[in-house]
Each structure stands twice: as structure tokens, then as C-alpha cells.
């Protein structure tokens, strides 16, 4: 069970309270997590990364286990704690705007 935490504006868009819990078969990577998230919540397509798995949007960041994973290759394995569901995968809106 993978736990994903979305920023408030995307939780509202996707009509989600709290974390999203995803079952993923195969390698747990940023790509596979986001693919599963978008399959569960199609309205999030294009709001975190480009359509069809395109690049991360400039002001979105990915954190887990107190690490910034935003610049890691999307097919790298996520930390074991994320894959085990003990730590969440965080989709974060960068500090910007007013």
C-alpha cells in the first residue's frame, strides 16, 4: 500500500480527504505511483506532470523520507519506507505566489 499526500488545491480538485492509498504491482517508482494516482483520479492528469507521463510541472515538488526526489529519474525505485507504506510520498506545491 503506497500512501500519497497531495497539496490542498489538488485534494479539492480530486475531491479527496486525507491521503490517497494506492496498490501498485511491480516496481514502486515515481512514475508508477503517479500513473496509479492518475488512473484513480483522472482529473489530476496534467496538474502534477505533463499529460501522458510528461515532465514534472515546474512548481510541483516530490518529497519522501525527508528527501527531495524532484530531480531523480522517474523510474528509480522509491525508498523502501514508501514502498512499504510506512512513509508517504509527498506531492508538494512549491512555495511561490501570493
Amino acid at each position, binding site marked *: 500500500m503506497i500512501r500519497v499526500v497531495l*497539496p*490542498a*488545491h*489538488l485534494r*479539492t*480538485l480530486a475531491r479527496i480527504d486525507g491521503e490517497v492509498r494506492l496498490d501498485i504491482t511491480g516496481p514502486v517508482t515515481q512514475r508508477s505511483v503517479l500513473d496509479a494516482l492518475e488512473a484513480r483520479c483522472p*482529473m489530476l*492528469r*496534467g*496538474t*502534477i506532470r505533463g*499529460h501522458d507521463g510528461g515532465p514534472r*510541472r515546474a*512548481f*510541483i515538488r516530490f518529497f519522501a523520507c525527508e528527501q527531495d526526489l524532484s530531480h531523480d529519474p522517474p523510474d528509480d525505485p522509491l525508498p523502501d519506507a514508501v514502498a512499504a507504506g510506512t512513509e508517504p510520498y509527498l506531492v508538494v*506545491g*512549491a512555495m*511561490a*505566489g501570493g
Partner: protein
Amino acid sequence: MSGVRVLAGTRKGAFVLTSDGTRKRWEVSGPHFAGWEIYHVKGSPADPDRLYASQSSGWSGQVIQRSDDGGATWAPVGNQFAYDGTPGTHQWYDGTPHPWEFARVWHLEPSLDDPDTVYAGVEDAGLFRSGDGGQNWQELPNLRGHKSGPSWQPGAGGMCLHTILLDPVQQGRMFAAISAAGAFRSDDAGQSWRPINRGLQSEGIPDPDAEVGHCVHRLAMHPSRPGVLFMQKHWDVMRSDNGGESWREISGNLPSDFGFPIDVHAHEPDTIYVVPITSDAEHFPPEGKLRVYRSRTGGDDWEPLTTGLPQENCYVNVLRDAMAVDSLDSCGVYFGTTGGQVYASADSGDSWEPIVRDLPAVLSVEVQTLP
């Protein structure tokens, strides 16, 4: 009893303002999509319960929302705006070629007769169409693909396609306007386009009467007389009596001919409204007095409308999509300001009252006249 529904898009959400036909007491709902920029909300002329909203943010890009119940509930629809083919380049601010990049939807224009068909004007300037209620979007590529496209440059606010007018009489005729490329017309439902800028003079471009490159801020028409077009340009208020084939200036006695919106009275095709702004550098009303100017002669002769509007210390702007009219009798006129006020006049502009005073900066105002 008939009523009106005002759809206000703001920097931080959408608001729906409703009243009965007296237009004296208003109910305000919102913010819808709180925290997001709502560039435009517009209802279908064919089904007033069908609304489309353009929702965007710097973090998460573009979302299109649709309501099938007059704005009570909403659901996201398609948000993939992919330029047709290899997009190519336009000019960047420094004159270098720059790839076309989708940024946001500025304007949504539902079809006159089919609630599921809607057009979207986007930045970087392009025109898209959906025939399935906003689920899927296809570019009408020959506007952006016009031979002049590689020479188009963005205005300070970005290179946006901000105006779409559908001719209710001549089948297939439509108009679009782009900052800072100019006005364009199609006579075949958007399959082909040509610039319609003859008569425009823009001192801010190297060739003042060039075929393209003009910063057109807004076009307006009266549905009973679609061959007559009105234009608020970066500077100058203009009129065409031949579907855009040629233009003449009608700024007349305006205190400034710089501004953004322009609109036409619902029942008087020669009564038009503008909001003069001091200059391109000073985006606020001259002398700090918020005045709508009305011409009852199709231009040239203008009268200030001030009753109920602040006449001192007012330094707001009124953006290009932030004025609309209802079709009640007498015609209602509405506009929103960057200071968060939405003003309404139930008497064709003779007097004004704020419906709301403290919204986020208003980006757009549309009105539906309800049965």
C-alpha cells in the same frame, strides 16, 4: 419572473451572483475553485444550465470545469490542449524565435446552438474546439498557422487569444483577436483565417499600419448586426461596418482612448460602452474617477456615466473580459474591477451599484439572462 446570473472569474476563484429581474437584491455564491485563477466563466446560449469555466494556477496548470446545473455543481473535464502537429515558433520579446507553449485558457466561447460545442482561446495564441462538452480539445490550426504566425509577438500580458465572436447570421463566420497580433476572421467555421486589421494605426510597432502586430484588446458586436464590429485597441476605439474589412477610429471625445473592454447594448446596436484608462503605463482611470463612457451614436460622441461610481481616489482597472450586458428591458450592464468590485447598472448605464465590493481582482464578467 426572469432573472440574471452574473459569472465572475477572479484571481482566487469564481463567484456566481444571481438576482431576479429587478436586479436590486443579489445572492452571492462562491468562491468556487477557491485559490485558483479563473480567467473566464461562460454559459451556453443554447442551454443556460451549461457553464464552462477556465481554472488555472501557476502550480498545477490548466483545468476546465463544466456545470450542467447552472453552477450549483461542477466537474472537471478535459484539460489537454496540444497544438496541432509540430508547433513551430513565434517571436519572443527579444525578437528571437520561441516555441509555442500552452500556458492557459483565456476565453471560452460556447456555440450558439449546441451546448456540447465550445471554443477556447489560449495563450500562446491558439484556438481550440471541443464537440463533446469539453472532454476533448482539438486545435483549429490554421489561425496559428497563418503565414504571419512566426512574426507574432506577445504583449506584456502574454500572447493570448482573448476574444472569440460567433456570427449568428452568417453561417461559419467567426472572429478572433490576439494580443499582440490583431483581429482575424474565418468564413468557414475556423478552417481558414485572414487578418482584418486594415485601418488600424499602432504607433508602438515599427510599421504603424502593418497587416498584423496590433494589440487588439477586445472586439464586440451586436447579434442583430454582426457586420458591424467595435474594437478597443491598446490605444484607439475603432469601428468596422464591413465585417472587419476596414476600420475607422471612433474615439471622439473620450478622455483617453486606451482601455480594455468594449460592449454593446442588448437592444440598441449603436449604443456602446468603454471604460477609459489613463495610459498603457497607468492602468487606472483618468483623474482617479471611475467612469464608463457610453456612445448612443455608434462612436465619436461619448458621455460619461458616473452615478454610483467612485469619483475620487479610484485607481482600479477593468480588464478586457470583465464587462457584459444582460438582455432585460432596460438593458443591464455589468463590469468587474481589479479592486474586486462588480458593478451593475439596471438602466443601461445611467446609474450603478456595486453587487459586491471585496472580491479578489476580477478577471472576467459574463451575464446570463434567465427565463
